[in-house]
């Protein structure tokens, strides 16, 4: 009898300790993110989402995630890498604590030697290069079509332009020269494939600096994501139709504001 009671007592103590440890465990939520990071369960790693103990966060090349715990400590994770819950605490952001005296005398020295950069004001607004204007797909567009009709406007004297297309997380770049201002490409599971992200750009140069040309991002939605987004947008379309707006205008606005352009 005593043995049974003792083993139960041990079991209860174990449960209490384990649960207490569970409660005492840190919780982290996503405070900032760059890119479209995903957890292994395909759960999107967006702002405000908690990093659960069994989650694995996959980050590709340019993706970054900043997490905050309950006491305000900041943790930064960057790709390419995969992180489990236990990895977070190892990535605490070290705050820059340069000596105050050093900062003060550096400040005095810069003032004394007049090394501070002069402030130059310029009354001007900036406009990007308008020689080539990319019309469709708009930047960050989400599409769900069997073919994509790329359209642009060529305001230069040159007849021949070059379309550059690359998969976002790949190295290969497809280059197509054309004398027109549009091109129809099919989602053929080869050049374009559902569920992937691409970048496209138009250049007047056949060999431009690939880092400097401005790409538009383009996402080809898979069936599931499309259905989810469509449901949300259908509600919007219905609401605005009831308010008397024409459907074509609503779809145009959804494409411009939500970048959802499958129609």
């Amino acid at each position, binding site marked *: 009898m005593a043995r049974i009671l003792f083993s139960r007592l041990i079991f209860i103590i174990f449960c209490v300790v384990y649960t207490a440890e569970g409660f005492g465990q840190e919780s982290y*939520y996503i405070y900032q993110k760059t890119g479209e990071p995903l957890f292994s369960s395909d759960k999107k790693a967006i702002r*405000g989402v908690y990093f659960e103990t069994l989650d694995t966060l996959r980050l590709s090349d340019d993706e970054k995630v900043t997490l905050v715990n309950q006491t305000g400590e900041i943790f930064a994770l960057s790709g390419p890498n995969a992180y489990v819950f236990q990895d977070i605490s190892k990535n605490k952001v070290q705050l*820059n604590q340069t000596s105050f005296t050093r900062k003060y005398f550096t400040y005095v020295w810069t003032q004394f030697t007049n090394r501070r950069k002069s402030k130059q004001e310029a009354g001007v607004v900036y406009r990007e290069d308008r020689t080539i204007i990319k019309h469709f797909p708009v930047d960050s567009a989400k599409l769900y079509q069997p073919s994509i009709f790329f359209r642009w406007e060529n305001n230069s004297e040159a007849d021949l332009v070059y379309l550059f297309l690359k998969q976002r997380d790949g190295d290969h770049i497809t280059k197509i020269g054309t004398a027109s201002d549009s091109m129809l490409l099919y989602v053929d599971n080869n050049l374009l494939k559902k569920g992937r992200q691409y970048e496209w750009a138009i250049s007047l140069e056949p060999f431009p600096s690939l880092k400097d040309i401005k790409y538009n991002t383009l996402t080809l939605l898979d069936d599931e994501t499309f259905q989810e987004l469509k449901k949300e947008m259908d509600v919007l379309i219905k609401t605005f139709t009831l308010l008397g707006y024409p459907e074509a205008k609503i779809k145009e606005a959804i494409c411009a504001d939500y970048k959802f352009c499958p129609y």
Partner: protein
Amino acid sequence: MDSELVPKRSKRKLLWRDAFLSTLLSLITCILLSLLFVNLNFFNPLKKALEDFSFLDIYYSEQMHPYLEMDSNIVLINIEHENRETILEGLQNVLEENPAVIGFDVMLQHLDKSKTDTLLARVLNDKKVISSYILKKSQFFLNHPFFVRDGKQGYVNYNFGYQDAVVREFTPTYVFQENTFEAFPVAVAKSYMSTDEWYARGYPKKLSKPILINYKSDYLGFVHFPLKDFLSFPDKKMVKDKIVLFGYLGSPTGNPFDVEDKHFTPLNKVTAGKSIPDMYGMVIHANIISMILYNTFLYEVPLFWMVILTFFLSFLASAYFIWLDTKLKISYRTVRKAILFVFTVLFVWLTIALFKNGIVIKSAPIIAVTLFSAGFVKFYKHLVKYINTKTVFNSYYR
């Protein structure tokens, strides 16, 4: 040996006496000049430019303060230009997560007579919500009476002096017609803390007079979300047991060119001259709340001790430069300027080091008066010479 010591001693006495007289005369001149500054319109632009200046500002503007962890006890929610329905949804969502207290730094002066307003009025009078009002020239600018019932409130004025000045201090309580009113951040912090702790820290007395604000950070030092983002979070438990402030942080959040509800603070990158305001009102409230919660008040050295310190430094400077004037004939001016420069740099360093440890000494007037006294030595020398043409006046200069 003794016969040599006696004149040395009496010479030293003369030096201290001359230093004392020179300091006294320089201080009287200084006071007379400062009165001119106050009264002459011609000097107004100069006065205006100098009255907001503090050497301590470079502590913040040059980021000499230590980088602290984010204050996760205070969550800022930026309402941007969201409509009342969205604000209501935000308040309801936060209340569902059981926060410690909600501070609503938003004025609702008109009534739409809508269902949203009815629900807003109910939420704003929740025991966990503290609303805001403005106290101006003994007048109250409240939310529309429909929203004001028996809920808690706090005034959002920082001080009752200059409106365009840098916000360095705030008035925690204000007595008007024998009633004591509490500032918004005080009301929020009081709701968050236990009554025992509030009294144990002696806050009722401590918060009865204007207090310097110990700034922790701009909005980046606090957990903050745009309202729309917050509403989209699948899990909102990060606000549980926290102080949640609803207010404006620019559109989009932190927009440096958006100046609505933005004020000048010591954190401004420009310490003197023209600049744009740098901190949103809600962030100033958050800094004050943080200061009250963590008891990180600054100790301001009283005026009496400031005067004593100024006199002492001026006296030492006068004695030293009278002595130096008799030793150096050609290089005196150069050496004096170099020494005064080193003194200024080191004294500012000392005051900033003290400020870092929570002690505030306003260095600008002390430095100005000390430099003035050091320069006054030459006038004193000429004065002594002039008096000696009329009568015998024993001096170190003779």
